[in-house]
């Protein structure tokens, strides 16, 4: 691994950690419930990106499967929470 890729991956992991902290702060201080829903969705996407970057760091494609699962369940969770806020029931 060349130094440019090493430090690029380090910088990307740092930036994604900062992004996840920002989303976590909005999740904690969000004044309304819909703020918390989009903050959790953003947190899911940032975690998925961090999984992809970790897959490059460890040169393993297992992290790719984890990223796929996070993307799938993040969408299902956000849609279920939005449905609950809209109708008061998840499955009617």
């Amino acid at each position, binding site marked *: 691994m060349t130094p440019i890729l090493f430090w690029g991956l380090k910088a990307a992991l740092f930036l994604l950690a900062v992004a996840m902290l920002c989303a976590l702060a909005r999740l904690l201080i969000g004044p309304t419930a819909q703020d918390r829903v*989009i903050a959790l969705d953003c947190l899911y996407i940032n975690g998925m990106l961090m999984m992809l970057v970790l897959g490059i760091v460890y040169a393993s494609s297992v992290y790719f499967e984890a990223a796929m699962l996070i993307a799938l369940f993040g969408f299902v969770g956000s849609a279920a929470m939005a*449905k609950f806020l809209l109708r008061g029931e998840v499955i009617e």
Partner: protein
Amino acid sequence: MNDTLAASPLWADIATAVLVVVGASFAAVGSFGLLRMPTFYRRIHAPTLGATLGVWSITLATIIFFSTQGYGLFLHAVLISFFVGLTAPITTIFVMRVALFRDRRKPDPKVPVPPAFGTTPAPAQPPPAEAP
């Protein structure tokens, strides 16, 4: 770290590093906007930056990195791009409907009212008297 890492050419390493840093920067800017914007209706725009350009850049970096490892073309990561590109607008529209629904139940004049179907929004008029 295994030995196959040394097999990737220099241009692939440079392209991977640049794309990963660009994607992570977009995600960081989007999440910072999510934290920084004042109202919900402005706040919902920010994370789409990370959900589109961030995801595309980092999946492209993944494709370039794993395709130059000597195991053939690695195109599975395009699945993530397409999936996130498909579901992020759905989530955004859904949460937007939720916010409008919840805000319209409160008497707040700043919340936009729904326009009438098929017409341009008319100025507010008193409702017609109901015939008994």
